[in-house]
């Protein structure tokens, strides 16, 4: 079952590559996305055993991140239909390899969520980079090319370090008295208590820096703003909504091993340090940001920082961090879709030249307003709960000043976003302004995501709540 | 009921006499015979029998101004215990009502002045607003000096407590209160150091400036209102300087009248001897009065109530 989840999108990708007609590609894309979501929903019902002699094995965190990826991918595929059919941005675009890469991207991300073999997981994460690089270079222009090159190089170098970390972990496990175990999570956890401490620490540091680059934690985040400002909107939504979570899952695997080894305090401190660095840097850059797509990129960095701090604090905060992963993906994907709509209607990503969005694109404007409030942590929406849970543990923890700094940086970031978005929404777009018709499908996905974020703020479904609790339990919750 | 009638009689009959005495003192100082002592009464009688000319820009507020200023002055008088130990409208906390009533009268006089739309009346109202804003703290602090030793907020008890105390200024605080009240009296009733009631140059007027456009019965109400206000604040000052012995009945009234006349002569002397303060100096004069009262209070608190 799990192997099907990985292989089917890959095969459909190949099919799409050779099919000449765009419509068939789109049907393939949406079909795969739907099938993937149904399969994931099925996985929620029963326990599925390991496959391919323990290469593919699904546990609760894996299932959680798999379902996030699946939901975001379905909304992105629906959004891609009008995005491609209505003619893309002004430049000629590489349509031919867009949908195949999307499908390979999906299979790579699925593999990350599904496997517990660390080396295979590394290969999957590297696979996501390689699959998404052509997606970033969708528009034939210099900026996109430069963004792709930086994305490719910085991420590959980062992930290479993660491979080194995986090998270090293997060495540490091999050196421990339990004897050589395969590089699966369960094996490593069994060997963890007896591992040589320096190798374990070096392994975690390498993995944190490696996958941290992919996750966008400061100061390893440098590729993220460039990539998001150049990539087409559905790709940015997938990058921020799903890919960053996969990198976070990879770090969590290593964190599980550290927890099993009993000496996890150093890991917590590292997570908190990098998380706070991301928060500080993201807030600073959001304050005077000119480009609204880069603004959302820095908001992703900020939210990754929040999740990393949450996981570092442990206790209720790790539950908050996982909840925030869900909330953030929903909101950020929706925001990027809306950014795509605004870009298509106004033709520029400079916030200064965009005025009266509420007048010209009423649906997009209202949704943009709702999601801006959601990502800012305003109560009726989901992120308020996760951010409050993390803030509560931060303030109640050993260093109270950490909590104060945390909530002030969140406030600063929110004001930064308000400074950019609110003038865009308001302004002279009065009623008479020409209301450009927006296609149903370019508004439906963000609407669905926004209402999901609202539901998460008012009522967390019980199956999701206890899945989060079980996952947090496994991660030092 | 007899007290009430006596109280009202005093409030209505005596005040114009004070104006007469002040004018007679100033005339004596200037070596003139001056107008007869009852001249204010003749003026009032004349004005009450005249017609009235109203400006086209004014509304009913212009007509209400004089009425409210006289009514509030009378009401303030009723709050103040003139002769008997208690006043008809007295209660614990009437000190603040006393200050509030004076404020209400002033509010409507200023509103009437602005109603005419003339720059001179606006100038008078603006100056009145500024100086009264600084006079209120001084008045309140002086009243505080009276109330705190008596541990009660009613003017009746506060002044009553004075009469039981040994004569003269048993405590320097009362001297400060008296001086403070005298300064407030001069400011409120537009006497010389603050304002010149007899000036004819509109640019220099304050209180007169506000009532330029009134004529006939309205002017009469205005004049009697300011006379009553002079009488009321004067009575307060006299009760502080010459506290009548307890339950003295008519003798107390007599003492009050003598005190008032003495006060009127005093005001006349001050008016004859001093020149007007420059307008920007008036707030400093009033702030000085409140500081004086504040020092009195500090002395009171520091050595504990007598």
């Amino acid at each position: 079952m799990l192997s099907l989840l990985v292989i089917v999108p890959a095969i459909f990708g190949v099919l799409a590559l050779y099919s000449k007609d765009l419509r068939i590609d789109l049907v393939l894309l949406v079909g795969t996305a739907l099938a993937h979501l149904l399969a994931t929903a099925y996985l929620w019902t029963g326990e599925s055993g390991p496959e391919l002699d323990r290469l593919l094995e699904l546990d609760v965190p894996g299932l959680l991140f798999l379902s996030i990826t699946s939901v975001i991918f379905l909304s992105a595929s629906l959004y891609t239909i009008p995005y491609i059919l209505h003619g893309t941005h002004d430049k000629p675009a590489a349509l031919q390899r867009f949908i195949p890469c999307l499908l390979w991207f999906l299979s790579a991300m699925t593999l990350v969520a599904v496997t517990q073999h660390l080396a295979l997981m590394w290969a999957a994460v590297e696979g996501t980079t390689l699959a998404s690089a052509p997606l970033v270079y969708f528009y034939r222009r210099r900026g996109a090319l430069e963004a792709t090159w930086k994305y490719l190089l910085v991420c590959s170098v980062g992930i290479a370090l993660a491979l080194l970390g995986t090998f270090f972990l293997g060495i540490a496990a091999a050196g421990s008295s339990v004897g050589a175990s395969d590089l699966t999570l369960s094996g490593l956890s069994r060997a963890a208590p007896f591992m040589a401490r320096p190798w374990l620490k070096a392994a975690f540091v390498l993995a944190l820096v490696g996958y941290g680059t992919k996750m966008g934690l400061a100061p390893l985040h440098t590729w993220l703003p460039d990539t998001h400002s150049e990539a087409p909107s559905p790709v940015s939504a997938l990058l921020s909504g799903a890919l960053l979570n996969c990198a976070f899952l990879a770090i969590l695997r290593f964190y599980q091993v550290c927890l099993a080894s009993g000496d996890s305090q150093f890991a917590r401190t590292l997570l908190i340090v990098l998380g706070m660095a991301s928060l500080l840097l993201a807030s600073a850059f959001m304050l005077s940001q000119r480009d609204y797509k880069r603004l959302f990129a820095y908001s992703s960095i900020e939210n990754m920082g929040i999740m990393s701090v949450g996981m570092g604090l442990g206790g209720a905060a790790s539950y908050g961090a996982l909840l925030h992963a869900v909330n953030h993906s929903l909101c950020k994907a929706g925001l990027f879709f809306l950014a795509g709509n605004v870009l298509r209607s106004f033709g520029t990503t400079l916030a200064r030249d965009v005025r009266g969005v509420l007048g010209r694109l009423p649906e997009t404007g209202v949704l943009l307003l709702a999601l801006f409030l959601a990502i800012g942590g305003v109560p009726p929406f989901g992120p308020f709960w996760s951010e409050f849970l993390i803030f509560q543990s931060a303030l109640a923890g050993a260093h109270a000043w950490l909590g104060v700094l945390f909530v002030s940086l969140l406030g600063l970031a929110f004001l930064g976003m308000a400074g950019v978005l609110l003038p865009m929404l308001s302004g002279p777009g009065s009623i008479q302004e020409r209301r450009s018709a927006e296609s149903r499908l370019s508004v439906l996905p963000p609407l669905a995501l926004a209402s999901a974020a609202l539901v998460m703020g008012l009522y967390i479904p019980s199956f999701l709540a206890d899945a989060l609790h079980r996952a947090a339990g496994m991660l030092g919750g | 009921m007899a007290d009430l009638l006596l109280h009202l009689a005093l409030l209505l009959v005596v005040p114009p006499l004070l104006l007469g005495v002040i004018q007679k003192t100033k005339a004596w100082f200037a070596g003139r015979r001056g107008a007869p002592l009852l001249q204010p009464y003749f003026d009032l009688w004349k004005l009450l029998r005249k017609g009235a000319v109203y400006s086209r820009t004014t509304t009913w507020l212009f007509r209400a101004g004089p009425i409210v200023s006289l009514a509030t002055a009378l009401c303030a008088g009723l709050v103040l215990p003139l002769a008997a130990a208690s006043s008809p409208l007295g209660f614990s906390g009437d000190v603040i009502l006393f200050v509030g009533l004076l404020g209400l009268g002033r509010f409507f006089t200023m509103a009437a002045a602005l109603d005419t739309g003339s720059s001179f009346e606006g100038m008078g109202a603006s100056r009145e607003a500024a100086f009264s804003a600084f006079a209120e703290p001084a008045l309140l602090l002086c009243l505080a000096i009276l109330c705190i030793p008596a541990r009660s907020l009613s003017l009746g008890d506060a002044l009553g407590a004075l009469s039981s105390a040994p004569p003269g200024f048993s405590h320097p605080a009362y001297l400060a209160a008296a001086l403070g009240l005298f300064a407030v009296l001069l400011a409120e009733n537009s006497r010389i150091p603050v304002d010149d009631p007899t000036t004819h140059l509109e640019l220099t007027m304050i209180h007169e400036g506000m009532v330029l456009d009134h004529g006939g019965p309205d002017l009469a109400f205005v004049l009697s209102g300011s006379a009553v206000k002079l009488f009321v604040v004067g009575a307060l000052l006299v009760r502080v300087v010459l506290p009548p012995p307890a339950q003295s009945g008519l003798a107390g009234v007599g003492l009050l009248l003598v005190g008032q006349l003495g006060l009127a002569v005093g005001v006349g002397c001050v008016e004859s001897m001093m020149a007007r303060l420059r307008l920007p100096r008036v707030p400093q004069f009033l702030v000085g009065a409140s500081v004086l009262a504040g020092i009195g209070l500090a002395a009171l608190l520091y050595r504990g109530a007598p």
Partner: protein
Amino acid sequence: MVGTILFAIALLGLSALAAALLTRFDRASLTIGTTGSVIACVTGASGALASLVRRGSSALRGTWSLPLGEPHVAMDALSAFFLLCIFVVSGLAAVYASGYLPTYIGRRRLGPAVALFNLLVAAMAGLVIARDGILFLMNWEVMSFASFFLVTFENDREDVRRAGMSYLVASQFGVVFLFILFVLLGRSSGTYDFDRFAATGGLANACFLLAVVGFGSKAGFWPLHFWLPEAHPAAPSHVSALMSGVMIKLGIYGLLRTLTFLGPPAVWWSTVLLLLGAISGLAGIVHALAQRDLKRRLAYSSVENIGLIALGIGLGLLGQSRGNALVSFFGYSGALLHVLNHGLMKGLLFQGAGSVIHATGTRSLESLGGLYRKMPTTALSFLVGSVAISGLPPLNGFAGEWLIYVGAFHGAERLPTAGAVPALVALPVLALIGGLAAACFVATFGTVFLGLPRTEGVPRAHEAGLAMRSTMGIGSLLCVAIGLWPAGALRLVVPAVALVSEVPALASDATTPLFAISRAAFVLGLLVALLALLRRALLRGREVTQGVTWGCGYAAPDSRMQYTASSFVQPLLAPFAPITHVRVDEEGPSGYFPRDARYHEEIGDVGERFLVPGTRRVVHLLSQLRVIQQGRVQLYVVYIVATLVALLVFELMGAGK
């Protein structure tokens, strides 16, 4: 009783939703929204009144699947009193809005405005009955954002957007402190339930300061008030009436509710509040005097009245910390009665200002004047509002300030010297504030309604619509009623005071004097009536003619020769020149035949002097960080290696072998 309030909130929510959905049809959404909010306000107010009179208190506790807190609502005396204020002022504002909003049809959509208004009222009511930290914070944020979007209703204007931004910064700044306050309280008592919140010693002091700053930024205490004179004038008038009337009072409610958790107050708490109150009051009224814009002047006067309320609470705390029940009773009851009074008065004044602006199209005091003939009802209610807010006897403003004065007097008399001094200092401050307020509002009333119209725009003014006139009428009647019968209003306040100051209600000490005040008011009315009759009798036989105002014989008096707002307050502001940051831009007449001369005075507030340059410097400082994102790939790889080396050294060396 709390059931009726929940019903009212539900009704408000539903009507908000309906109005939002019907955005395309302005009239329909307006009627639905207004009827919904009026019915809800009436039921809510009656429920609150019933609970106050019967001194009942009821609670409802539910469960929800959200990770934190629980939906626990209850209504005690304090909540009931504030609910009464909220529903009365909101009801009046809603009816006023039904007359005021139609002018926007064609320019702005009405649906969102009506929906957000109902949402704001629902959030405020929800806030007051919330008995759980999380629920409280949720309502607080919904209130802040609903009011933010209402303030930026006309966001096509640049100054409205700037005002909205400064309001957002202030509310975010305040919310940070509230988050910290509630988590500290939650941690010390293990749950977010208000019934079990408690803090003593150092934690209580910290919580007090957090509450003062957090709630103070919404209430508008002095340095934290910078958003108020920006946001209120930018908002449509019915919203500024609601915000000034009742929303900033919820900051006071939050402060009082926190005080009930913190047990016996420390002595220095009262000094802090007295100081804040005095500064807010004085600075507020001085800046109000210096304003040229009608709504900005009313906004600053709100800061002054919040200062008075803070003085009241300060006296209440003084009484509690010194153990004198009388002082604390008068302090708290004065503060709470002033909350209700100010809600009514300021609502009335803003509604008056709204109809003036709606009629003349301008807010500047320099160009108004002579509106009495054209707008008699508005003028009369504005007069009632002005007399009331100046704290003059027959009206309700006096009743509230009287209680605070008596509290200060009792403080000066009964407390030992150390306690008496702050009370004594409060006396002259209260008097000065009262005097300046009277001057400010006679100037405002005079320059707007009396005299001659200063510009040609004014003569075309027309009286406000029926809805607006009726709300102003009801508002004035309420002010007069409370003014004439303050003892009744005190009966509403006493149960709430008993709850806050944990002292047996000493109602008797206050009701007899208040009855005396009513009697004095009656006597004053009698005297005025008698004199009016005397005047009519005297003038019956006489010849009464119309003439021109006496201009000292000047041949061509002109309406521009009248005293304007700035000239009226110039002697008042001269003594305060050292503490106010005055910028004068003038060009005196020159040459033998001077043609043009110009004099313009601008009073800078704490906002312009410190905050705007401060934020600009911070943003500039943070933008230095942009050098990190320089663009070269090699540099990015160096970042990765540097982080790796740093963390490795930190881990391997730091942890030691």
